[in-house]
């Protein structure tokens, strides 16, 4: 099979050749068989025709004429009123039949010919003798005795059939004067009918027609070769195309392969990078995990601490709630206290002042200067006490008051406050410097109280100044933005600055600068309640500055 695959064309050609040879051989054989058959057929027809003609002639002509006295003889040509013997008829007819057909012979032979026929009717060669011998041994055989051999230099069929004695023949042969034998019996072989049939002429005829066949075969070969060639060319082209395609595909595949290789290379590189990154990541994850575990422990600790802290806070909270409640309670108490102070503490003072005045008015003539003076002191003291009570109540109110925050113009408030003081003391000449557009987000009423106190202090402590100056503004102080109120008044000793914002604390003699000593405490409380800070700077005799934030 592999051979067939590899050398398809060669094998096919060989097979085709083999077929041609087989066909040729077959045709040759067929030719021989046909020649033989034609020769047999021809010979058979000759013999049968001659035989039937002789019998018919014997029965229908010879016997009838014999009854009318007409004799049949071998020398009928020589005698008037004689007709040819059946054997002579056979001989002559045979000669006539083959006339013009060279090589062919047709004749009747017998070892017992009628006399005149002795020269030509006897058995002349070995073949004829063998044939006679065969038929005498096989008297019933209807088959011909035959052989192919050279006759006069030509390949010929020698064909012999037995000529048997008929009923019509026996009488004559046993009685005819020329008959060499008188004991013929019906059916006995009396002679041989021989046909010599040259087959070379047949072969020539056949050959003529075979030439067509061979021509046809040749044409077939040519067509086959042509077709085969075309197929081969076509196959070749297809093969070339296929080869080209294969080359192209191979090229494409190679380039794809290269691409793939580079891709694989890249992938491998990427994989390597990835692996490294993964290793790195794992390392980092491990580190992180370690750190996480550590921080987790830390967290757990922290959580525990937080819980403790929360617990503390909760405790503190409950304490706070308690405190708050207490504070509220004490606040209420304080409110009640200040309410009753407001009502009850003032009434006696009014009495003291009022009746002192009554004494001064009603008993003026009974009092001397000293008595009058004392009563005046009583009145002054009671009035001062009244002011103290008012200041104290005010301070207490500020502690409780709700804060209502809004943004407002502090500059305007400062100017209004200064105007109020100016109205109260129209004769004083004070230089007032108020910065524009200073805004604050706070409770406006409380901030007004702040400015009233601070500006009031400034107003008060610049009384003895020749050129008093009060300034309000907003600016940077030691890196902190703050509001300020400053004056060039009496100032204060920084040694006692810590006492400045305490309630009922005074840094100046009452006689020098009157006041109850709650103004700065009030300011401090308001600033504190706004979440701001207040601080002061002062130099004795040079002035004071109060800074505050909100």
């Amino acid at each position, binding site marked *: 099979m592999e051979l067939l695959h590899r050398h398809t064309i060669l094998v096919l050609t060989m097979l085709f050749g083999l077929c041609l040879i087989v066909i040729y051989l077959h045709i040759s054989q067929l030719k021989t068989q046909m020649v033989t058959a034609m020769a047999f057929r021809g010979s058979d027809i000759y013999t049968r025709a001659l035989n039937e003609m002789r019998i018919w002639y014997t029965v229908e002509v010879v016997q009838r004429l014999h009854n009318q006295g007409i004799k049949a003889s071998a020398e009928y040509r020589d005698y008037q009123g004689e007709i040819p013997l059946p054997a002579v008829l056979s001989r002559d007819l045979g000669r006539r039949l083959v006339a013009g057909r060279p090589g062919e012979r047709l004749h009747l032979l017998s070892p017992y010919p009628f006399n005149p026929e002795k020269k030509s009717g006897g058995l002349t060669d070995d073949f004829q003798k063998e044939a006679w011998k065969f038929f005498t041994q096989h008297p019933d055989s209807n088959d011909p005795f035959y052989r192919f051999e050279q006759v006069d230099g030509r390949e010929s069929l020698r064909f012999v059939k037995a000529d048997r004695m008929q009923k019509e023949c026996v009488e004559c042969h046993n009685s005819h004067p020329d008959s060499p034998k008188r004991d013929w019996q019906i059916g006995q072989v009396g002679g041989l009918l021989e046909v010599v049939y040259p087959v070379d002429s047949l072969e020539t005829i056949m050959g003529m027609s075979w030439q067509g066949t061979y021509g046809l075969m040749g044409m077939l070969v040519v067509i086959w070769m042509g077709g085969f060639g075309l197929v081969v060319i076509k196959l070749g082209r297809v093969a070339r195309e296929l080869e080209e395609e294969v080359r192209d595909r191979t090229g494409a595949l190679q380039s794809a392969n290269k691409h793939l290789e580079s891709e694989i290379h890249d992938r491998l590189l990427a994989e390597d990078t990835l692996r490294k990154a993964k290793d790195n990541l794992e390392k980092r994850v491990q580190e992180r995990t370690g750190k996480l575990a550590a921080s987790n422990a830390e967290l757990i600790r922290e959580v525990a601490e937080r819980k403790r802290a929360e617990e503390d806070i909760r405790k503190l909270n409950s304490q706070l709630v308690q405190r708050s409640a207490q504070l509220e309670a004490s606040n209420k108490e304080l409110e009640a206290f200040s309410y009753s102070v407001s009502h009850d503490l003032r009434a006696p003072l*009014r009495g003291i*002042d009022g009746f002192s005045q009554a004494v001064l008015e009603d008993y003026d003539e009974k009092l001397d200067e000293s008595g009058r003076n004392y009563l005046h002191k009583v009145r002054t003291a009671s009035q001062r006490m*009244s002011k103290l009570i008012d200041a104290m109540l005010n301070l207490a109110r500020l502690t409780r008051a709700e804060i209502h925050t809004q943004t407002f113009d502090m500059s305007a408030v400062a100017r209004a406050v200064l105007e109020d003081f100016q109205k109260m003391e129209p004769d004083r000449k004070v230089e007032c410097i108020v910065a524009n557009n200073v805004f604050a987000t706070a409770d406006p009423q409380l901030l007004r109280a702040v400015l009233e106190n601070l500006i009031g202090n400034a107003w008060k402590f610049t009384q003895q100044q020749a050129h008093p100056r009060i300034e309000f503004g907003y600016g940077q102080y030691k890196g902190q933005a703050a509001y300020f109120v400053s004056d060039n008044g009496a100032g204060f000793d920084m040694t006692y600055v810590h006492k400045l914002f305490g309630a009922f604390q005074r840094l100046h003699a009452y006689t020098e600068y009157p006041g109850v000593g709650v103004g700065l405490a009030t300011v401090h409380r308001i600033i504190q309640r706004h979440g701001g800070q207040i601080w002061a700077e002062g130099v004795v005799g040079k002035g004071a500055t109060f800074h505050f934030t909100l």
Partner: protein
Amino acid sequence: MTNKAILLVEDHPDDEELTMRALKKNNIKNEVVVARDGVEALEYLFGTGAHAGRDLSQMPQIILLDLKLPKIDGLEVLRRLRADDRTKFLPVVVLTSSKEEQDIVKSYQLGANSYVRKPVDFQEFSQAVQNLGLYWLILNESAPERV
């Protein structure tokens, strides 16, 4: 100046005396009826209790009302007399020691016509009484008796 009475509701005798002195010093000659607690003030106004049978057509020209009073306090007195048709238009001046915001607000809510704090300084007090007399007894036109 009418000669209708002034009703002074005041529990403290010193304050009563000082007020009377201030009135006298300012030549206010109107009769002054003093009620020493809220109950007494209401009895006088509605003619009940100690004042049963009083001629209710004679209502005071002005009521000077202290807030801190025994039994019924000043704010309650104010509420009740404003609730009654006979007294709802009577001028009431709250005259008290307190300057507490809550007292001021409540007084006006209940229909006080004025709120004056008694100053400690008698001269100031006297001045205040004079102003009150001038305003409520002379300048102010009261509502008709029958409305």
